[in-house]
């Protein structure tokens, strides 16, 4: 996903959240979502069956160096 239609994004936001993006806001949102999508296409190409957000806290503890 390299480009998104700002008009579609504005319509979706209005439909789902009852909030109206103006033209500039829709362009900003579309650009941001396209960037996030591109990053995820690179980083999350494979299913992540063994990960979930709740693992993060335990990951930090597991990575903590001993003796610090």
């Amino acid at each position, binding site marked *: 996903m390299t480009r998104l239609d700002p008009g579609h994004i504005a319509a979706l936001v209005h439909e789902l*959240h009852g909030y109206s993006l103006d033209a*500039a806001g829709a362009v900003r949102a579309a650009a941001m979502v396209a960037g996030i999508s591109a990053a*995820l296409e690179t980083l999350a190409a494979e299913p*992540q069956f063994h990960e979930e957000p709740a693992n993060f806290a335990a*990951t*930090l503890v597991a990575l903590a160096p001993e003796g*610090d």
Partner: protein
Amino acid sequence: MVALIDLDLVALAEAIRARTVSSREATEAAFARARAVQPVVNAFIAIDEVGALAAADAADAALARGGTIGPLHGVPLGHKDMFFRKGRISGCGGAILKSVPADRTATVLDRLDAAGALDIARLNMAEFAFGPTGHNVHYGDCRNPWDPARITGGSSSGSGAAVASRAVWGALGSDTGGSIRLPAAMCGVVGIKPTHGRVSRNGVMGLSFSLDTVGPLARTVRDAARLLAVIAGPDPRDATAAIHPIGRYEAAACAGAAEGIAKLRIGIPTNYYADDLDSEIRICWQAGAQQMGSLGAELVEVPIPLHEHISLLVNAVTVTEGATLHAHWMQTRPQDYSPQVRARIEMGFAVSARHYLSALTLRPRLTREFVDRVFEACDALWLPALPQPVPERAATDFGDGPRMVSGLAGLTRLTRPINYLGLPSVVVPAGFDCNAMPIGMQLVGPPFAEARLLRIAAAFEADAGLKSRCPLL
């Protein structure tokens, strides 16, 4: 004789304990200084003179009676106006909460109270902590004490400016993408962004609960270490507060200042944090690295993995969680937000659940990969906190205009990936630019290695000889 306001926090606490200075004298000195600097820096939202003087007198009376004395007994502090105290109004930098008393007291305030600290003022901040510059349309811009035409950095703008102005001896801030580290760097003070979960967020206004951290800003590394030791630790009122043991932060800072950092490996990034730096920042960063080499540290070059992507994932998390928290007000009273904050929050309405959850699901793996690769090669990273000299307020008053996204992203480029990775970071003053504005550098380490970072920062601080410098207000 050293003026009272020129004592650092540790020295003041020791003077109060020894009864060579009273808490009332310190508090009156803080008020006098605050009154003098406020017209220039606009760091204060409110000062509680009556309550603070009563608390100071109580602290002095308790000391006269003898008994147990906390590590911050009688020391005046002020905090970013988003740490709730039951019955008190904290506006969080915005218009909507300006008349709403808090229904709880933040755990960190309870802990500072128990350590004997005085909470004398509520400090300016970016609206709902959503901004890295210090601009605020509701309370007025916070201005840098080194040059009021320049920004303080944000969102803990008042914390950085009040500490740098020597109007309080320390302050709490919060850091979601750089909000402690940027004002620390731009105002020339020390700031600690702890490991995610190291400090309780109970009773603290949330911006992005997956990324928010609470930490201190102070004049010296040891001062900041003492404050962190008081506020860190598990909290039954915050399920995300880590149970992991607290380090001996102040002892580590003292050891670093006294013994140095021989045999530690300091990582110097070869990309991302080394890219697109202003020449003055690059020179200061490299000189700081050489300085640590001269202190006995081994300098090692370290490639930084995945950061261009991580920068985008931070945005996915921040704006989505921000939009979730603010959805009702955004729908019912959007006019009560500044155009810039409204424009930033509303982007979160466009992020899909899959994108948001993918960004969070990737976080454990990307953090493991980063920590394994980077901290196998070094003990801590030495990084710039800001890629450019402290900019002028006028030049960064982006509003919701066409330069907003790139301008704000540029200011947080070197800080926000660390929030996604959940890692600790300490900002320490490292020099001055040609405009006589401070330059701050950040040390980043593996999870819960705050003591290690404080040791290194204290060694650097002791050698750099910058901590006696303060703005001429």
